[in-house]
């Protein structure tokens, strides 16, 4: 099981409106601002620096 410096983040969000293109491999993604975090989540996107991050966007429906 991978664990060292591995952060899994589930960002819950709703899909609406027109969709821009995804970020491509090698691009630096736009930082996300966290309104609220659970389970000892990161305080800011900067906390991911130097880590392997699995950024999972989920919906409840």
């Amino acid at each position, binding site marked *: 099981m991978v664990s060292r410096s591995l952060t899994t983040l589930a960002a819950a969000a709703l899909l609406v409106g027109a969709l*821009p293109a995804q970020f491509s491999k090698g691009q630096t993604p736009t930082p996300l601002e966290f309104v609220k975090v659970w389970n*000892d989540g990161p305080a800011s996107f900067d906390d991911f620096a130097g880590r392997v991050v699995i950024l999972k966007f989920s919906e409840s429906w």
Partner: protein
Amino acid sequence: MSGEAEGTIQKVFIDQLGAKYPIAQIKESDKAAYGLKFFPSVYVIAPDGTVHSTPDDRMPNEQEIEELLKTVSLAPKMPDDPRYDPLRALWKKGEFVKVRDYLDKNLAAPNLDAAMKDVFTAQRAEIDKRAAAAKARVARLGEGPDYAEAETQLEKVEKQWKGMEPATAAAAEKARFASDAKIKKELTAGRALQKLVASHDASKTSGRKKLGEALQQFRKKYEGTHAASQAEQKITQLAGMR
């Protein structure tokens, strides 16, 4: 702003699904830049901050993630100055007690220059922050329900934080696992499941079929355990792969 209200995230992901991993509510405007077409969508970000895989790619497997993890430096950012090389080397080894002791020794030196003092003070705060996070993680691991995996992770914490509080906390959790009959049962089942899965080659149709049959037997044998639930989920996954 998240597409989902704070109350919905709390109810669905935390209360109902029992998520133990970090969850963040994000702003709708931020999320739009990620071009999400479906849910769940997964981006994997490499240690250098760039996209390693996108939602349209195959999700990297554990081995690929492990390879990516090898590129991670445990050292926090510090000035590109050879005077910090010894400290950088200690961080790289991941021996946190040595990092702490090195910092404490240098910070106590009377002739430490102001710039180095600032860097060492920040580094000392960083190791305290990481220790606090490791302790919090130990507490979460102690809650189960996957005690077999938790024990593996606790052993890693114990090794990496030897001589510091997270290691003590990890050792205490392991001792608690060993003295709790219900957890011991979960550990036995969890380890048996790990062994069973590792002994089958699920990349081939025949291997998946044999694994599915073995998991059915496992589920009956260890009924009522978390591992039996995991076996059930695995059976469903395998059925979807045929």
